[in-house]
């Protein structure tokens, strides 16, 4: 009996505390919690696992119920599937009646050349028209490409090993602003092509002022997919959402009337929606509502994390900072949060601003 009672208390007490917490917590938290669940998704398919996925014509022995007769000009033969999961019709035949009597059977085919095992990954997604898209593999620059005029991009990474990878993608808009990175783990299968599709990179975001006079308008702008719907999330005491539409170049602008905001610190971020697909959220842009207006100030933390001032935050910066980690009297420039020491927090800040 005691045991049962103990179990009831064990599970009911935390639930009671959570319920009370939820009851007494602020309403804005509830709003935030309900919206935070909306997240961007990507699709991972493996070409080489003998299962045909949506982005593939076929996969190994899985020919999606197709045969040579489904292809015009062929009446028989053997349809096969390439290593890239596309149909191969070279084994298909046409019904040509031989002019004379039947000839002797052909000799058996010799063993074909051994196909090298290629382990690769393909990344397909959307950025902005003509924007530069960067792919990082385990934190290091792997491929850079340019999105087409329709904002679509595709990049292939070969020479991989089977195993877990952390891939990151980001893009740079027409004025050089960098989007937030979309980072995700992927298990790459040996001898197969892993296809990651549905990548929808976040919009860039900026504001025209770092401080805005209460009642004045703050312009929030950036770039995303052309004609997409932009949702701007303003984080204030009472969080709210506003809509804007990107133009044919993907540029968007939202004029925020600050008369509704309280005096103090605020931030905003944006995401893009098109055809029921949602991008990842942009970085946050911070601003203050006060008694005067101050034009936009560049985020200096980003520049500070670029320790060797080469325009990139990468392994070189990590290595030199790691050299001073736990050493006595390190130079102050490595102390990114100005707390007088070089510790994990400084490396976390560097990892956030990482460009590869």
């Amino acid at each position, binding site marked *: 009996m005691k045991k049962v009672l103990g179990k009831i208390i064990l599970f009911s007490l935390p639930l009671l505390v959570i319920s009370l917490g939820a009851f007494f917590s602020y309403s804005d938290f509830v709003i935030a919690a309900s919206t935070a669940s909306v997240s961007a998704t990507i699709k991972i398919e493996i070409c080489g696992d003998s299962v045909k996925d949506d982005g593939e014509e076929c996969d190994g022995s899985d020919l999606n119920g197709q045969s040579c007769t489904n292809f015009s000009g062929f009446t028989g033969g053997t349809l096969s599937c390439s290593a890239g999961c596309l149909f191969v019709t070279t084994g298909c035949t046409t019904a040509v009646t031989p002019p004379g009597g039947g000839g002797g059977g052909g000799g058996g085919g010799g063993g074909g050349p051994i196909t090298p095992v290629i382990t690769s990954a393909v990344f397909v997604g959307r950025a902005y028209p003509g924007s530069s898209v960067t792919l990082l593999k385990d934190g290091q620059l792997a491929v850079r490409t340019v999105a087409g005029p329709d904002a679509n991009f595709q990049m292939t990474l070969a020479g991989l090993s089977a195993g877990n990878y952390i891939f990151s993608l980001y893009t740079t808009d027409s004025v050089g602003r960098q989007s937030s990175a979309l980072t995700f783990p992927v298990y790459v299968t040996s001898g197969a092509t892993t296809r990651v599709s549905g990548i929808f990179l976040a919009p860039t975001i900026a504001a025209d002022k770092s401080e805005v006079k209460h009642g004045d308008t703050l312009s929030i702008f950036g770039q995303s997919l052309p004609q997409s719907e932009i949702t701007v999330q303003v984080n204030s005491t009472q969080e709210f959402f506003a809509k804007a539409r990107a133009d044919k170049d993907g540029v968007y602008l939202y004029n925020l009337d600050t008369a509704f905001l309280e005096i103090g610190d605020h931030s905003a971020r944006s995401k893009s929606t098109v055809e029921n697909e949602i991008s990842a959220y942009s970085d946050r842009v911070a601003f203050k509502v006060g008694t005067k207006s101050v034009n936009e100030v560049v985020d200096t933390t980003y520049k500070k994390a670029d320790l060797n001032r080469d325009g990139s935050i990468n392994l070189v910066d990590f290595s030199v900072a790691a050299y001073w980690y736990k050493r006595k009297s390190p130079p102050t420039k490595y102390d990114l949060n100005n707390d007088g020491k070089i510790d994990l927090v400084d490396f*976390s800040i560097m990892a956030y601003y990482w460009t590869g």
Partner: protein
Amino acid sequence: MYLSKFKNLIIIALVFVLFPNVAFAASLYFNSPKTDYTVGEQFTASVLVDSVSEPINAFEGKLVFSDDQLEVKEIFIGNSIINFWLDAPKADKGEIRFSGIVPGGFQGDNGLLFSAVFRVLSTGSGAIKFSDYKLLLNDGLGTMAVTTVANLNLTIKPLAIGASAPDYLPFPDGTLPEEFTPELTRSPEEFGNQWFLVFATQDKGSGIDYYEVCEGSQDNCEKTDSPYILKDQNLVGKIFVKAVDKRGNGRLVVLEPPGGLVWYEKYQNYVIILLVSIASILLVLKKYARRV
């Protein structure tokens, strides 16, 4: 056991009440085939992280255990979500310390940090516990994530008389570390403008064990970490960088020196020597023939 679960639940509940704007962020836990072992047995414990609601980009902590009871045989970092280690996990007197970062952050479940192979030494109740752990959010500020941990509790029995402990089969790894490109660089702001090398790669099997840099020839090597300040600042002679995994598979990268090769590394010099030698021999033979 119940007390530990109860404590975790209370902590989670309090976090929700006291910090309503902080989403429940992350948990650290173990994956181990079982919790009951016999003396002499070896087992692998993998350290995993879940962080579904918020991305984490920096990890730090240590595993604590009794070194009278457990001996660390091997540690593997292959397939870890951590891309760059500050402290690669290393066993020392009943502790395994670790710290590292994931640029862009890790968001998901079952993220592997590393695996350790333990050998059981003595009987009784034992545990491998998380201590001094810190997980930081990928928010540009290094905000500490609310983290719960689940320690690994063990029951260790004596080996039955006449029985022998099950054999541990170390997993094979015949794959080389991944290709990489070391970067030779210098900056007036770093190391007094001296040339230095930075390098990092991954090994998806057993994980990178160490790096070696050789200057001039492969007879002149030294185990090192990135960054490596070059001894020869004139950059004469090739530079060899080797990444070696825990099973001894090595990936060698050779850098041609910007300062030029030393004379014996230039094949043209051998051609010249050969031509001069042939010409000398011919000359000698010609003189000899005249005399005769």
